[in-house]
């Protein structure tokens, strides 16, 4: 049985229409090509911020369109990169006086399609830079040329960039800041059940009882190894330690994201958060901002990820800077 309730034809178009109808005061829908833009924008912002990627990770990216975060989001089909024309047209629509910045998760298709759009923008005389998000420790292997995947840290990078853009940073400064945000962020994800395979229904991969996928990707990419399921505390401790250990120049103040992968309940995520905070406390790490919820899922996968961003000087101001979007919690910004 297919657990997904989606129209057979153009499900992403339908969902984006429904999304725009749900947030009429915040976003504007563009149907040909498909993208959404923010209705409001901080007057100090000189650079348009745009992100996008395959669908199935909602609320990413459209949920973070609005004043204080993204100026546009461009969805591809489920787990597939958007077309370069969507990126190109959306970028033209939101480019500021100092151009446009693309926030791209590190996948080959996204890199190529955003890259082609960037070349078209350059030919039009619109300055463009890219921030690549590559936080997933499961793919931290010096042997592969493709590098780490982009996952949960994307929402953190998008929020920090939004604050920085509203502070009036220029394109090059923003691109460098974004690269630093991404470099200071690492994630690890686990799953107890795969997501539904979008086309055929059924689970995208099978796990036997008592096993979990440690290091799963947000498209159901299998981990390097399937492991025997540890106790709850052991699992969360191991994940948190791994992320902290990977942040080589970790500061003692961090942003934390405990992210659901689609089918994991808030009851579980809050319990995970409690345990992560326990581990961070033991390590002497203080949490200056946190998100707990489903922000970057893999359709309806059962699982969660932990992302830590090691903060520097003024980043926290950008994290707390006002943002009004469909999905970023206002409670994080009302300071």
């Amino acid at each position: 049985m297919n657990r997904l309730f989606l129209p057979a034809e153009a499900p992403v178009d339908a969902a984006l229409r429904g999304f725009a109808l749900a947030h009429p005061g915040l976003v504007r829908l563009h149907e040909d090509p498909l993208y959404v833009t923010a209705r409001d924008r901080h007057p100090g912002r000189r650079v348009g911020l745009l992100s996008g990627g395959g669908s199935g990770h909602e609320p990413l990216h459209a949920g973070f369109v609005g004043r204080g975060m993204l100026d546009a989001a461009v969805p591809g089909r489920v787990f597939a990169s958007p077309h370069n024309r969507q990126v190109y047209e959306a970028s033209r629509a939101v480019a500021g006086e100092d151009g446009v910045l693309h926030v791209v998760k590190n996948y080959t298709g996204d890199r190529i399609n955003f890259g082609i759009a960037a070349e078209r923008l350059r030919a039009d005389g619109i300055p463009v830079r890219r921030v690549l998000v590559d936080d997933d420790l499961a793919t931290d292997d010096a042997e592969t040329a493709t590098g780490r995947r982009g996952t949960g840290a994307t929402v953190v990078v998008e929020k920090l960039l939004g604050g920085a853009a509203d502070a009036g940073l220029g394109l090059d400064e923003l691109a460098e800041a974004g690269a630093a945000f991404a470099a200071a962020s690492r994630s690890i994800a686990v799953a107890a059940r795969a997501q539904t395979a979008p086309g055929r229904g059924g689970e995208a991969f099978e796990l036997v009882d008592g096993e979990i996928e440690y290091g799963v990707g947000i498209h159901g990419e299998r981990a390097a190894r399937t492991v025997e399921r540890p106790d709850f505390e052991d699992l969360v401790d191991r994940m948190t330690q791994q992320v902290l250990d990977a942040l080589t120049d970790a500061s003692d103040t961090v942003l934390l994201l405990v992210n659901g992968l689609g089918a994991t309940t808030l009851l579980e995520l809050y319990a995970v958060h409690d345990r992560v905070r326990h581990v961070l406390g033991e390590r002497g790490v203080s949490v200056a901002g946190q998100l707990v919820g489903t922000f970057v899922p893999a359709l309806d996968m059962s699982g969660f990820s932990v992302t830590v961003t090691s903060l520097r000087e003024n980043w926290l101001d950008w994290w707390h800077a006002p943002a009004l979007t469909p999905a970023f919690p206002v409670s994080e910004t009302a300071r």
Partner: protein
Amino acid sequence: MTVTVDQEKVLRTYAEAARTAHDALTALDQLSGDGDFGDNLREGLDGVEAGLDARPGEAPFAVAAGVFLDEVGGTSGPLIGLLFQEVGRALAAHGDGREGWAAGVREGLAAIQRVGEAEPGDRTMVDALAPARDALDGGAGFADAARAALAGARATADIRARRGRASYVGERALGAPDPGATGVALLFWSLARVAEPDADLGSVADAVGWPAAS
């Protein structure tokens, strides 16, 4: 005397070459990719011809760029669109002659490499473009640039792919040239056909060079 080349005629010659080479390009792509390159190139260039018919006043390579960037599937379609975009810009800036083409190929290759991050030897269209760029930059004529591109494409038969779709299949594609490099080399074959009609370049089948005559 500066040779100027009829841009529209180059594109129409390229379209005809893509139709002729369709089956061979498809067969090559079935060995190393998902088999749609022949279709994409032929349908894209058919679309370019339709665009040229519909909008006769517009710069031909700008029309071609729009079609390939917006409408052609796969990854290689839009990358060829970038080549058209840069050739169109360079021809507008430097004229329709060798200098314009040299600049356009140089800029087009640079854009494709920025996007695709491929180097010569990675078994991609860069293996046809880089020798053509080097030839044109070195002062060669169009026929010699075409020979360089065709030789570069042919040499991909001995390269194991590290980038592009063929990187997933490894040694299975060895012995057959890369379809993207071959398809792009046909642009230079077409350019030389129009610019230097007396040059001995052989047929489209000779240019594709696969399946090899036994």
